[in-house]
């Protein structure tokens, strides 16, 4: 089996737009979702800014029953369920009613941790000798696959239902896992995506290793500065992104709207050898991931029109650009357009890859390239490699064909996907 795989549904819960339409407008216009975070200030974090999606009670009630909402503390499950149910609906699909699940539809929905606030509450209760008062949902909210479990129940998914985890590459990897399952004929339709909890207990560890900026507590929107000379770390973010993937045949048969096609991609690890460590990438591994993705997608280096990069607004941005330049053998004005959404929404950790993939597909389908924000003072070492015009700071309205999306994560893991514009075949 070698099915063509297309994207027919999108959903997103992002700090700068908690639904698809708001998000699309936000990325086109360079709207920031980074705000001062009073809780982080109270807890004396170095970095007191963050990106959190805004979901009100009325919206919550559309996705969760009053019973489900009792004691629901897992923000990751909330974001993931909303993004995924939106994507399902956007694809023109309905939850299964009746006793028989949809055996041909499944989900790969990743996360780094699940329900960290619920976990904290449970730990305090256990230590206070109140284990019997934990209630019935601690397991479902704190198991990593909680988000997938909620989704399969809500939609009636009967194919593979699982949660992947590979640090900040999680969301990109989840799409590739779903892609492969459909390509090889083991599923017709997969809900792919990832989610990440909000709050101090998920972000604290990053604050401790000083990868979050502490220089912009007074001007949050300027805080996260990918490719900038004054980059000083990322703003921690959260949310979820979701994509419905299905065989081209199924999409055509249903008459579904097709956003884009996935040509292929690659995941690998630098093995923490060479320049690679727990926290830094082995540059050879990154470059290999990119070239293997192109090979698996069957396209030439010169065909890449746009890169949606990982670029976390740390000192590693220069190295990432170097890796793209080396892998693609393109530089200066010959380099593809490149952007990073992290200037607007920060680094959404395990949700980054999926939110950014949604942004990538929106660009391909909508004929635009969203602007980089906070990148005006381009790092001189980057400018030596890539012409300024290839790093847009205003939205470019133009049609293009191929977008490469990559994510890199702790543990020296890499993932790269090649998306193609879909035009009636």
């Amino acid at each position, binding site marked *: 089996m070698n099915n063509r795989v297309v994207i027919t549904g999108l959903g997103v819960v992002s700090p700068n737009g908690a639904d698809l339409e708001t998000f699309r407008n936000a990325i086109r216009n360079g709207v920031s979702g980074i705000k001062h975070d009073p809780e982080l200030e109270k807890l004396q974090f170095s970095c007191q800014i963050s990106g959190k999606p805004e979901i009100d009670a009325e919206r919550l009630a559309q996705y969760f029953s*009053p*019973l489900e909402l*009792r004691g629901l503390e897992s923000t990751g499950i909330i974001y993931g369920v909303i993004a995924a149910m939106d994507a399902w609906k956007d694809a023109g699909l309905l939850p299964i009613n009746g006793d028989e699940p949809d055996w041909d539809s499944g989900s790969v929905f990743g996360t780094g941790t699940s329900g960290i606030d619920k976990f904290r509450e449970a730990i305090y209760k256990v230590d206070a000798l109140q284990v019997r*008062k934990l*209630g*019935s*949902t601690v397991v479902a909210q704190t198991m990593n696959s909680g988000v997938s479990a909620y989704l399969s129940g809500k939609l009636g998914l009967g194919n593979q239902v699982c949660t992947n985890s590979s640090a900040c590459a999680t969301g990109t990897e989840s799409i590739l896992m779903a892609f492969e399952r459909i390509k090889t004929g083991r599923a017709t339709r997969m809900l792919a995506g990832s989610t990440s909890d909000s709050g101090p207990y998920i972000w604290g560890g990053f604050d401790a290793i000083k990868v979050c900026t502490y220089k912009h507590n007074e001007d949050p929107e300027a805080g996260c500065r990918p490719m900038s000379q004054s980059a000083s770390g990322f703003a921690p973010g959260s949310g979820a992104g979701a994509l419905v993937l299905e065989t081209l045949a199924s999409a055509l048969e249903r008459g579904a709207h097709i956003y884009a096609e996935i040509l292929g991609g690659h995941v690998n690890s630098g093995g923490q050898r060479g320049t690679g460590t727990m926290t830094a990438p082995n540059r050879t591994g990154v470059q290999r991931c990119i070239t293997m993705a192109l090979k698996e997608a069957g396209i030439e280096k010169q065909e890449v029109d746009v890169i949606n990069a990982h670029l976390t607004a740390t000192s590693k941005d220069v190295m990432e650009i170097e890796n793209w330049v080396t892998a693609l053998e393109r530089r200066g004005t010959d380099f593809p357009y490149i952007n990073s959404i992290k200037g607007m929404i920060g680094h959404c950790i395990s949700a980054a890859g999926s939110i950014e993939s949604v942004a990538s597909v929106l660009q391909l389908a909508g004929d635009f390239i969203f602007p980089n924000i906070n990148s005006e003072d381009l790092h001189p070492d980057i400018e030596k490699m890539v012409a300024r015009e290839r790093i847009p700071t205003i939205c470019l309205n133009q049609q293009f064909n191929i977008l490469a999306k990559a994510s890199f994560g702790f543990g020296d893991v890499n993932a790269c996907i090649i998306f193609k514009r879909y035009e009636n075949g």
Partner: protein
Amino acid sequence: MIVELKGILTPYTEQAEALENLSEETDFIKDLQINSANLVDVVLDVEEKFGIEIDNDSMAKMLTVKAAIEIVETKLAESGR
């Protein structure tokens, strides 16, 4: 007490008719179709409502309205109320 129990049970069941006609004979699982994990939550809510603690053995028996009332009354009596 049956009125108080009804209030506690309401969020856990979608069987409106069985809930409306709640009687001593009502079975939590058969009639109200409360899932077994949620039965634990029902017990916790009952404990909170009546200020009692229900031991594991009693909890295992608390599957009908009648059993629930008996257990609550016993526990209230034990605590001298």
